[in-house]
């Protein structure tokens, strides 16, 4: 670590930033048309008041408080207020929409109970939906309305907070398991903020951010809410729903604020290409945008290229793209590609990658006769942090694999979490000889990290490895397939001599001939793109594929259903909805991120 770096707690950062009355956070609210601005001095005061209000409920240092707050400013002050009182916030996403309420309640209850939260702070509307949560979480003594807390005028009783104290719990929703609480200390935060802001993005005082990312998720929470406190930068927050409804608003605010830094998953850039009209681009100026971060899901070079092409006319430079690798278990950031260089792609031989696990470069001159895999570079490990590749069987992390050998990516360094809250067994399983097992498969080349997919999901056919994400991506391109609602997996039954490849996809086509035609088309497209024959294509109705309450497709669960022969018997979410006792189905933001924000590469699940 550079000699200049002095780790500070988040609390110290809030207090230090309070000297500034010029910089701060602006909250865009479409419903009220208001844009309240809080200077860093104002953030200090508002968070102190919230901290005092939480203390007045009897919460003490080390106690947990669960937060389900869809409003950005409520969330920021409740979260920071808790930190200032030494209370450990546990962010939970708001209810899922479009009918999957029962799963949401189950997950929320699990998180509240597992974290041992004594108090849950939420809005009156969500409180109604939560219903009986309180009676089912033994340690939860109170569900508190956020407006009541805001009206309080209790003084904050200062607590001594040190770097080794727990800062907050970030529950990650797994596709195969219950959410696990990543436990982060102030030291973790200080270390990761330092690598993001100083080493990765080289943030200066003039940098301004614009973010529509949900704050209950690490990319928005740490990247745009906590890190800018350390560096005293101004941020404009848009509600996630507003971006999804009107993607142009993101770019309008970037333009208006002369924003220099913003992040989004791959899908956000694709959505802008698809939805923003020529007329909405008039007057935009994106020439100040120097860091356009992309992470949290597989990065598709063609989507980013299309974005750069479309918005070059209003000053966007493709050199601004920064590809990012990160996960909650490593606080947020693991590695970033070099700023100012744009996206870097490694062209490797597809067959060697899949059959031998070797990333052999393809000379630029070679034509595309041999299948070429384009793997996006996610840059180097940061100072004091290590990324290495090991065979998955190397349970003590004894022999790192050489350059360009594909294996499991493992991490070490001050950003790596202490463990999962109250899950000693899971925590032990997640480390191998002191290294964090990411579950991601990739390789290192020239010091940079390249990610191929998730280990548990790799499909092996005749000794070759295929990544389901690639197949799902290809199948999604076929007309009639519901984009982002495709699951590919391998299945091995004792009677089979090899792993069979299955693709399950949602479609609204109903008649048999149309579905048959669709099956043929999906087979053809995947065959052409990957040289792989699918054994079984299964079209199902919309809403049938199992999802986590955060809307993430569940690959392992789908395989289970398929193997048990239950997949086709499964009703769509409509029936789940009707069966639900709660009539008032509450829809949330996070449902809209299902194939995006919380899915794929960069999330450990």
């Amino acid at each position, binding site marked *: 670590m550079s000699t200049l770096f002095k780790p500070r707690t988040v609390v110290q950062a809030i207090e230090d930033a309070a000297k500034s009355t010029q910089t701060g956070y602006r909250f865009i609210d479409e419903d009220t048309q208001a844009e309240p601005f809080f200077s860093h001095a104002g953030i200090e005061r508002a968070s102190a008041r919230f901290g005092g209000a939480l203390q007045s409920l009897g919460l003490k240092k080390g106690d947990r408080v669960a937060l389900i707050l869809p409003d950005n400013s409520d969330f920021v002050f409740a979260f920071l207020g808790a930190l200032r009182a030494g209370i450990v916030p546990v962010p939970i996403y708001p209810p899922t*929409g479009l009918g999957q309420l029962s799963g949401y309640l189950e997950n929320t209850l699990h998180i509240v109970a597992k974290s041992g939260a004594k108090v849950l702070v939420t809005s009156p509307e969500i409180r109604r939906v939560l219903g009986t949560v309180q009676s089912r979480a033994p340690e939860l003594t109170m569900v508190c309305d956020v407006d009541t807390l805001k009206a309080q005028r209790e003084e904050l009783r200062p607590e001594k907070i040190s770097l080794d104290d727990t800062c907050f719990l970030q529950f990650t929703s797994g596709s195969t398991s219950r959410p696990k609480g990543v436990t982060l200390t102030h030291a973790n935060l200080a270390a990761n903020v330092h690598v993001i802001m100083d080493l990765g993005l080289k943030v200066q005082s003039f940098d301004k951010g614009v973010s529509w990312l949900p704050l209950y998720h690490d990319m928005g929470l740490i990247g745009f809410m906590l890190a800018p406190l350390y560096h005293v930068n101004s941020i404009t927050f848009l509600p996630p*729903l507003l971006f999804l*409804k009107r993607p142009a608003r993101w770019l309008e605010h970037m333009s208006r604020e002369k924003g220099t830094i913003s992040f989004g998953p791959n899908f956000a850039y694709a959505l802008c290409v698809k*939805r923003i009209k020529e007329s909405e681009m008039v007057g935009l100026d994106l020439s100040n945008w120097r860091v356009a971060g992309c992470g949290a899901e597989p990065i598709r070079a063609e989507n980013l290229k299309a974005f750069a092409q479309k918005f070059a006319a209003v000053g966007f430079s493709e050199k601004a793209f920064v590809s990012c690798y990160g996960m909650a278990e490593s606080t947020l950031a693991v590695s970033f590609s070099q700023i100012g260089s744009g996206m870097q792609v490694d062209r490797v031989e597809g067959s060697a990658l899949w059959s031998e696990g070797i990333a052999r470069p393809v000379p630029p001159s070679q034509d595309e006769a041999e299948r070429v895999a384009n793997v996006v570079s996610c840059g180097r490990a940061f100072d004091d942090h290590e990324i290495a590749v090991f065979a998955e069987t190397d349970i003590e992390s004894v022999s790192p694999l050489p350059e360009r050998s594909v294996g499991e990516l493992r991490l070490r360094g001050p950003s790596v979490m202490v463990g999962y809250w109250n899950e000693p067994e899971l925590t032990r399983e997640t480390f191998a000889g002191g290294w964090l097992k990411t579950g991601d498969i990739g390789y290192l080349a020239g010091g940079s990290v390249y990610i191929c997919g998730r280990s548990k999901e790799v499909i092996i056919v005749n000794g070759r490895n295929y990544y389901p994400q690639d197949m799902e991506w290809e199948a999604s391109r076929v007309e009639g397939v519901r*984009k982002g*609602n495709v699951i590919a997996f391998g299945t091995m039954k004792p009677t089979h001599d090899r792993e069979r490849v299955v693709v399950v996809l949602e479609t609204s086509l109903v008649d048999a001939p149309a579905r048959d035609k669709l099956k043929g088309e999906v087979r053809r497209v995947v065959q052409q793109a990957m040289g792989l024959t699918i054994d079984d294509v299964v079209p199902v109705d919309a809403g049938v594929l199992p999802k986590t309450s955060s809307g993430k497709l569940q690959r392992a669960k789908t395989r289970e259903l398929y193997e048990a022969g239950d997949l086709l018997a499964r009703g769509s979410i409509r029936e789940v909805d009707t069966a639900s006792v709660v009539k008032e189905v*509450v829809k949330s933001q996070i449902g809209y991120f*299902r194939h995006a924000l919380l899915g794929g590469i960069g999330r450990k699940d």
Partner: protein
Amino acid sequence: MTWTPETVRNEVIQILTPHVQADAALSESSHLVADLGIDSLGVMEVIADLEDKFKLHIPDEALRQVNTVADVTQAITSRLKGEGRLSE
């Protein structure tokens, strides 16, 4: 301009139609996702188009209760009525 429940319904259907997947039958009780195959991002696009067409704003909280075509129509008519732009 003044709307009637009839013209609102027709307009809603017109806006929904391009998002509906081939040969899904559109009716009042159709669930936007389960029946019509509109994905969650598509739902947001529909909402934006509706807001533009009817010149009104549907707040996030109201959005959370929209599941079917009838819910969409209801969300629009109740707001038009509140603004005195609906004649029954």
